[in-house]
Structure formats: structure tokens, C-alpha cells
């Protein structure tokens, strides 16, 4: 009996120890980013870094370390992507959850999830070869490598996340809601608009936050279609250089341990903090959603 107990306890402890790995990795990521990135600030001032609009580490005269243009690039692409993905995504989610027949839903849901399975390089390739010449044509630009094209591509990548999560939230609402509304003479659309979407709102917002996180972190597809110019972007038709692409472009050229290397890690740290905050907020929202309708 004691031997059995010992075996049980040691199995539990081992599993417990293994599950620590997730926490350790997260801490590890933060730690290494921090330790390397913080060194950059021994030579670069905070205001230069966060408020400077020029990022030019390899300039001959005076290297510039301002990430503001890069940050704006990230925000523009993220914003643009969400502008596309949110309306499309929510409409598709509503359709799948409330209107489509179960057969259609069964066919379409996995199809949409497959979009999420397309590697970002491949989407970037299509953006590069097909979409950007198209955009250039439509808008009469010399080049289609700009924030607009990037927003479109990233929007496509974020779309499955929003559809999937929103649809799940809608489907999980109790059927009593629908029945009560219809029994009062409301149409299906009125039910959706006045009862279901408000009830699912937190979940939908959470899906948007998840999409936002993905958009901020997207690297390869943007890298291939964003144009990557260092100039401060003033319109969506201009090329941008989001933080993620910047790191990807420059990391292979830097000397390990150099200031440039450390500065790239500092940008990485900023990215990490941004996605961490976004995640934190969406966690709180999801918590609110599940507490609100504890059925």
C-alpha cells in the first residue's frame, strides 16, 4: 500500500514538474530579451529610442535609434488588418453560427481554419506576386508594396481567428435565448442583433484582441509586401517598416553583442510587452464573459 502511494505521488510530482516548462519558457523569453535589450539603453536614451522617428543604425554619420516610424508601421498594418478582418469575420461568424445549415457549417469551418494553416511566407509570396501589382494598378501607384497591401494580407491571416472564436462564442449561447426572442415575435435577425451579439460581445472582443496580437506579431508576410522603407509613413499608400520585419531584415547582418544587436533585442522586448498586454486584456474580457452568463 505504501509502495503504491509512493508511485502515485511521484508520478504526480513528475507531471507537475514537467508542466512548469511552459512557465519557465515564458520567463526565459522575457529574461533573455530583457538582459540583452536593456544593454542597448546604456548607450541609447529612452527618448531617442521611443520618440525618435529615424531608425538608421548603419548610417555613416550618426546612427539613429528611433523606433517611432517602425512602431507607426506596426500600428498602421495592425489597424488596417483589423478594419478588414473584423467586419468580414463577425459577419461570417454570425452566418455560420445562426444561419447556415449544419452541413454547411461542418464543411466551411474546417476550410476557414485551413487558412490559418497557410504559412505566412506563402501568403506573402502571393501578396508580392499577385496582390501588390494589382494594388499598384488599381490605385495608379509606382509600387504596390505598402501599408495597404500589408493590411490586406495580414487581415486575411487574422480572419480565421476572429471567425473561429466568435463563432464558438455564439454557438455556446444557450438556445433558450433564441427561443425566448423568437417566441416574442422577433425575426432571426432581430434576435441576433438585439440578444445574441450583445450577449456574445465580450467573447467577440476577445477574438478581436487575439487577432490584434497576431497582427502585431506577424513577420514574414508583412516583410515581403510592406516595402520596408525607413521613412515615416504618412498614408497607407506608402511603404512601411513594421517592427517585426525590421528585426527579421537586420538580425542576420548584426554582430552578436554589438549595440545594433542589443537594440534589435530591445525592439523585440517592446513587441513582447505589447502582445503580453493584449493577451492580459483579452484574458480579463474572457473572464468577464464567462462570469456574466454562467449557465
Amino acid at each position: 500500500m505504501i509502495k503504491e502511494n509512493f508511485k502515485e505521488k511521484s508520478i504526480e510530482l513528475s507531471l507537475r514538474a514537467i508542466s512548469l516548462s511552459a512557465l519557465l519558457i515564458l520567463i526565459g523569453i522575457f529574461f533573455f530579451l530583457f538582459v540583452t535589450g536593456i544593454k542597448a539603453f546604456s548607450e541609447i536614451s529612452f527618448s531617442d529610442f521611443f520618440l525618435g522617428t529615424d531608425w538608421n543604425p548603419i548610417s555613416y554619420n550618426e546612427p539613429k535609434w528611433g523606433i517611432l516610424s517602425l512602431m507607426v508601421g506596426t500600428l498602421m498594418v495592425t489597424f488596417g488588418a483589423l478594419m478588414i478582418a473584423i467586419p468580414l469575420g463577425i459577419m461570417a461568424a454570425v452566418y455560420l453560427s445562426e444561419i447556415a445549415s449544419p452541413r454547411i457549417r461542418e464543411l466551411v469551418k474546417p476550410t476557414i481554419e485551413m487558412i490559418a494553416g497557410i504559412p505566412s511566407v506563402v501568403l506573402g509570396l502571393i501578396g508580392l506576386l499577385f496582390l501588390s501589382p494589382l494594388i499598384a494598378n488599381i490605385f495608379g501607384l509606382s509600387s504596390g508594396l505598402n501599408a495597404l497591401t500589408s493590411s490586406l494580407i495580414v487581415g486575411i491571416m487574422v480572419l480565421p481567428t476572429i471567425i473561429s472564436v466568435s463563432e464558438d462564442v455564439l454557438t455556446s449561447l444557450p438556445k433558450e435565448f433564441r427561443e425566448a426572442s423568437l417566441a416574442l415575435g422577433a425575426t432571426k435577425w432581430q434576435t441576433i442583433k438585439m440578444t445574441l451579439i450583445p450577449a456574445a460581445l465580450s467573447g467577440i472582443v476577445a477574438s478581436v484582441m487575439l487577432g490584434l496580437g497576431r497582427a502585431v506579431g506577424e513577420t514574414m508576410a508583412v516583410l515581403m509586401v510592406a516595402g520596408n522603407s525607413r521613412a515615416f509613413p504618412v498614408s497607407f499608400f506608402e511603404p512601411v517598416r513594421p517592427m517585426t520585419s525590421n528585426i527579421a531584415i537586420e538580425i542576420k547582418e548584426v554582430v552578436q553583442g554589438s549595440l545594433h544587436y542589443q537594440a534589435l533585442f530591445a525592439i523585440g522586448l517592446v513587441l513582447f510587452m505589447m502582445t503580453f498586454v493584449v493577451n492580459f486584456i483579452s484574458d480579463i474580457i474572457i473572464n468577464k464573459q464567462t462570469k456574466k452568463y454562467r449557465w
Partner: protein
Amino acid sequence: MAETKEEKKQRIYFLIFKFSTLFSVLILAFVLLYVFLNGFGVISFKFLTSMWSHQNITEGGIFPAILGTLLLGIGVSIVSIPVGIATAIYLNEYSKNNFFTRMIKLSIRNLAGVPSIVYGLFGLAFFVSFLKFGTSLLAASLTLGCMTLPWVITASEESLKAVPNSFKEASLALGATKWQTIEKVVIPNSLSGMLTGSILGVSRAMGETAPIIMVGATFFISYMPTSIFDKFMALPYHLFILATQHSSPFAREYALGTALVLIVLIFGLNFGMFIIRYRIRKKKDW
């Protein structure tokens, strides 16, 4: 019966919604078709099985990249699947709702949201430099393994949750210990789901480029990787360089061909896993 104003509104809205959904599906169809139609011309036996020829790319093939991606897939599986399944078992079967558990779950959610390039930086700083593994297959497998871990855990948890509580109760009531119940009832009825879900996660990792740029992927090596400390070629990175930095007039075409191979590989794996899952689900009588 004539249509009321409300019903008309509904009809229009629903039509719009239907089109949004259709559009989303069409995106997938378009991407697949585009890559297929434009890349197909490059595919040949030589393309798939020869070594890469740096001077004249039409002479060579992408075999080393295919191999590199497959090796990476195996490496990522070894790193993430056992750890992920063990974590999922702990979370689903043993953990109580305390601070420790909440921290672990929070970490998993956060890890899933970390940008892939940040994983690359982490891999560079930790596996390549600190642990001195150098830019290698090992460093890349570990880096991508960390990235895949949250996915494996989530997929495995889903599978474990699907095992009905009544089985576990019946087992406990017969005097089985917790681990015996897990070993004899929970795992056999969830293992296939856990593995198929995990392999889906690994297939995503195989399509990643950003993390491997700086931890081991290279555009051209003249030899095949023979040890885990070697650099390696990989399909996504290869395709990226071809598309953006290669000067040959055939580069873009070859990029599309590479993209086609990558997509066939990943979607083939996905499809395979779905079929396996479907078959196993059908056989289950609960």
C-alpha cells in the same frame, strides 16, 4: 404572405453575411489555386530530388530543403509532444484551481501569443549563444519546439476533456488509483486525438520562417546535414530568399514551386490527421 419590412432587412443582411463567408472560403481556394497553377510548371522529379545548384538554379532541386523541413518536423515533435502531453495530463487530471495552475495556464496562453520573430530572438540568445548549440538543427528544433508547445498542450487538453467523466468514476469506484485510471482508461481513449492534434501543431511549425532565420536555416549548403549541430536548408526560408533576394530570372517561378511543395506537405499532413481523426471517431462507440 408578403414580406414585412423586418423580414426584408433580414434577407438583405443575411445575403451579405453569406457572401462574407463565401469570400473567406474563396480566399483559401484562390491561394491554393494560384500556387498550384503557377508553381506546377517547376515541379519535376529532378526538382524534388536533386541538390540545390547555386550557379544555375534550373539545374538543381530542393531536396535538401525538403529534408531539412522534415528533419525539423521530427525535431520539433520530439521536443514538444512528450512535454506537451504530460503537461496536458497534469492540467486536466491532477491540477487544482490554485495559484500554480493559474500561472501555468496563463503562461500557456501568453506563449501562444508571442510573435514568431521574438521566439527567434529567444532562440538566438538562449539556444544558439548561451547554451552554445550554435546555429543548428538542434537550436532550431528547440526554438520551434517552444513555439509549438502551447498548441500541443491545448490540443491534448481538448482530447482529454472529451473522455467522459463516467468512465473515470467507474474506474475509481472499482478501486483503481488515479494513475491507473489515467493509464488504463483516459490515455487509451484520448491518445489518438492528442497525437493528431499535436502533429497539426507541428505542421504549423514546419511552415514557419521567422524563428529559423537566425537560428540555423541557411539558403544554401552544399552538403546534407548529418548531425544536429549542422545548419540546414528549409522550405519556407528557401522560398523567402528566392522570392525576395535572388537575382535569377527564374527565381520567382522556383519560389512558387517551392511554395507548392511546402503547401502540399503541410496540407497533406493536415488532411491526413483529419482523416485519421474521423476514422477513429467513427469507431468510438461513445
